[in-house]
């Protein structure tokens, strides 16, 4: 079965089944306009790589991989992160799985109540449109399927690390570049990887990057918000 969607501001045709189509429902679009991106079902080709997953979970991973790869052609990529929106700006927290990205953004929801929501809990799309970086909800949003179909200007990205106390500081240099690169989607073909490097170069110049060391107390959200809500662009 294939349907038409609007995802990250692009017209997308997805041929799939099961969980992929279920999570994509909020992104359905009206007409069958000529698609920017076509995602074809391909779980049969890759399921041998994931013997422990069901067919529909394999399809979910493969369809997400295909979408995010093609997104690179439209000045966008995926950053493995939890994206929380407060008062119309998106704050992203990136780290390896199991570090506590979602745990941290849950503290933001508690802190800000109805001013806040989760845009995408696992794999937001980032796109640069007319010189501004946006984070987007997508159907590929993690096991709990928490996403909202909208795009929000990006206020900042924090690389998250567990610590006893809460502290945040601007993050730059080679470690910052590699930490962001490690959490981005990296299709193996050279042309896509070159495009990713060009986008990362722009992103890191234009969006504040932070290193957040935090625990799981409510204070962590307060400390992070205080620093990250300072402004949209570097130097302001």
């Amino acid at each position: 079965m294939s349907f038409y969607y609007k995802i990250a501001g692009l017209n997308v045709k997805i041929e799939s089944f099961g969980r992929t189509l279920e999570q994509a429902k909020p992104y359905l679009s009206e007409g069958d306009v000529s698609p920017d991106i076509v995602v074809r079902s391909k779980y049969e080709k890759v399921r041998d790589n994931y013997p422990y997953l069901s067919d529909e979970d394999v399809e979910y991973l493969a369809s997400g991989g295909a979408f995010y790869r093609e997104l690179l052609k439209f000045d966008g990529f995926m950053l493995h992160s939890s994206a929380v929106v407060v008062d119309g700006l998106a704050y992203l927290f990136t780290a390896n799985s199991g570090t506590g990205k979602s745990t941290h953004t849950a503290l933001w929801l508690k802190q800000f109540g109805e001013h806040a929501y989760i845009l995408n809990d696992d794999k937001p799309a980032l796109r640069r449109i007319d010189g501004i970086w946006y984070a987007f909800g997508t159907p590929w949003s993690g096991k709990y399927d928490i996403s909202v179909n909208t795009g929000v200007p990006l206020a900042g990205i924090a690389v998250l690390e567990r610590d006893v106390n809460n502290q945040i500081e601007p993050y730059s240099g080679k470690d910052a570049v590699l930490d962001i690169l490690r959490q981005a989607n990296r299709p193996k073909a050279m042309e896509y990887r070159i495009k990713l490097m060009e986008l990362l170069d722009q992103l890191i110049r234009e969006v504040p990057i932070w290193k957040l060391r935090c625990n799981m107390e409510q204070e962590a959200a307060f400390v992070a918000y205080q620093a990250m809500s300072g402004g949209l662009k570097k130097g302001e």
Partner: protein
Amino acid sequence: MLKLKEGFILREVAGETVVIPSGDELDLNMMITLNETGRFLWERIAQGIEETDLVTALLAEYEVDEATAKAAVARFAAQLRDKGFLI
């Protein structure tokens, strides 16, 4: 002869020299950054160069003595070999 395998991409990202692999042959998780000297050596090894010629090139570009240059080239080549980057 020192020569890199095919498929590496070297790019400036936010002022840092980053090297990442691509394609089907390389270990795709091997991502590194290079300092200025590292980049100088890397770009010559990408083309393919004899180790003695690389020492000569380094001596011509930087103010170092021959023993230091030889050691630097040998160390860098060993690191690349350990990571499986060389043909």
